[in-house]
C-alpha cells in the first residue's frame, strides 16, 4: 500500500445497485436522474404513477401517508427528499463532490438552489399546468434572462459545476417541454449542451411525460 493510500477516498465497496423511487414528470425526481447521469451512478429507477398530481414546488412529495418520492434505497440505507438523495448520489458517484470548497461559490450555489425552490418552482408549476399569468411569464423571463447573462460569463451556473446545475437544469427541461421558446436564451442552450456532454448524452425528455391535465399541485 502506497503512502498516499492513507489519504485517499475510501472506495465504495457496496455492490448493490442504488434504487430510486420517483414519479414521472416530477422535477425533483428529474434532478436525481440528472445528477446520477453526471456522476456516472447506475440507478434502478421505479417511477410511480402521478395520478394524485405532481408537486413541482417542494423538494419531495408523499405518494401515500408513508411513502415519499424521491427516495433511494442502497445497501440497507434509505433516505428521501431531493437534497438527501442528491447528497447520497454525489458522494457515491465518480469523481470529486459537486460541493464547492470555496465559501463564496458554496453560498452562490445554495442561493441558486433557493431561487429554484422559491421562484422557479412555483413559476414552472404554473407554466406546466397551463395556469401561468402574465406576471408568471414575466418572472420566468426575468429568471431566464438572469441565467442567460450568468452563463455568458460562466461555464456552469456559478462557475464550476455544482449542485446548482442539476437543480436548475431540471426546471429548464420542464419549461422547454412546455413550449417556452428557449432559443431566445442562447447561453442557456449552450450550457444545456455542455451538461448533456457531461452526462454522456441527452437525458430522455420523454421521461417527463408532460401532460398538463395531470400536472396539478398536490400541496
Amino acid at each position, binding site marked *: 500500500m502506497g503512502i498516499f493510500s492513507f489519504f485517499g477516498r475510501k472506495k465504495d465497496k457496496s455492490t448493490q445497485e442504488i434504487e430510486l423511487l420517483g414519479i414521472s414528470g416530477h422535477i425533483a425526481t428529474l434532478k436525481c436522474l440528472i445528477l446520477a447521469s453526471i456522476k456516472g451512478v447506475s440507478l434502478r429507477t421505479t417511477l410511480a404513477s402521478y395520478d394524485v398530481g405532481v408537486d413541482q414546488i417542494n423538494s419531495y412529495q408523499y405518494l401515500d401517508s408513508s411513502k415519499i418520492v424521491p427516495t433511494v434505497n442502497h445497501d440497507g440505507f434509505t433516505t428521501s427528499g431531493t437534497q438527501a438523495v442528491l447528497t447520497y448520489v454525489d458522494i457515491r458517484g465518480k469523481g470529486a463532490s459537486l460541493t464547492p470548497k470555496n*465559501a463564496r461559490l458554496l*453560498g452562490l450555489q*445554495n*442561493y441558486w438552489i433557493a431561487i429554484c425552490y422559491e421562484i422557479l418552482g412555483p413559476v414552472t408549476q404554473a407554466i406546466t399546468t397551463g395556469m401561468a399569468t402574465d406576471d408568471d411569464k414575466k418572472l420566468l423571463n*426575468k429568471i431566464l434572462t438572469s441565467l442567460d447573462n450568468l452563463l455568458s460569463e460562466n461555464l456552469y451556473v456559478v462557475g464550476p459545476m455544482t449542485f446548482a446545475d442539476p437543480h436548475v437544469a431540471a426546471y429548464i427541461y420542464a419549461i422547454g417541454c412546455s413550449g417556452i421558446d428557449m432559443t431566445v436564451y442562447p447561453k442557456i442552450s449552450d450550457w444545456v449542451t455542455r451538461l448533456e456532454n457531461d452526462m454522456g448524452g441527452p437525458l430522455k425528455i420523454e421521461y417527463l411525460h408532460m401532460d398538463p391535465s395531470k400536472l396539478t399541485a398536490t400541496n
Partner: protein
Amino acid sequence: MMDIFDKRAPMGKEEHGSSGDMKKAQFMLQLLGTPWDANTLKCVIAAAEQGMEMQSGYLDVLNNEQDTESYRSVFEFGTYPGLKEADYNVAGSAGILAFINARGLGFSLAPKNVIEAATQDFWVDVAVTEATPHVNTIVQEQIIKPMIDSSYSKDTNAIDEARAKLKSILDLLDKQLTGNEYIIGKYTFADIHWTALIHLLFLADSNDLIEQRSQIHRWYSSLAVRKSNCGQNIVSFSLLPSIEDIKNKKLTSVIINDF
C-alpha cells in the same frame, strides 16, 4: 454611496472584538432579516456557532422593503435574509449558512460521511418543506398580525390546523432524537434549522407541542447552555429573539470578544 446594509446594519466598531490574531483574517458580516423569520434566526445561530462576527439589521418586510430598488439592486429577486461580506452578497438561509460554515472558525457543520450527510439533509428538508409553513402560520396568527393590528382577531382554525399537522412531524423528530444527543448524533445544520423553528413555536404559545415530546424538549433545553461549535465563549441560543425583541423589530448581532 451607502448601500442598504450600511443603512440597516451599520458596523459598530467599538462593540465588536478588535484584537487577536483570528480577527485579522475575518471581515465583518452584515445581515438583513427579521426576528420572526426562521431563516434569519438560522443565520444568527450559524454565525455564533462558527465564531463569525455579524452585525444584524432589520429588513422591513412588513412594508415590502425587500422589493425596494435599494434591496433589489443587491438581490434581484428580493429573497431574504441577505448577507454581505465586503464585496460579496448572498441571500437565503441555505446560501448564508453554507458560506458562514465554510468561512467560520469551527469544524464543519456538514458531515463528510455519506450516511450522516444524507440523513442531515433529510432532516433539513423536513424542517424546510413540512414544518416551516405550519410554524409560519402560527407565528403570523399569534404574533405578527396582532402586532400590526391590535384589533386583529386570530384565526384559531388556521392555528389549530397548523398545530395538528405539526404534531405528526414533531413525533417523527422526537423518535429521531431518541438515543441521539443531537438530531443525527453530532451537531449539524439539521440542529440549526430545527432550533429556529422550535424557538418560534415557544414564542408563539405552542410550547406545549415541545414539552409533550420528551426527546425534543431534552434536546432543546440542552441547546440553551451549549457553547458554540467554534469553541469560543458564546452560546448561540442566547442570541435568539424574545417576544419583546420581535415587537421591537430587533435582531441581535453576533459579537465575539475572545478571539
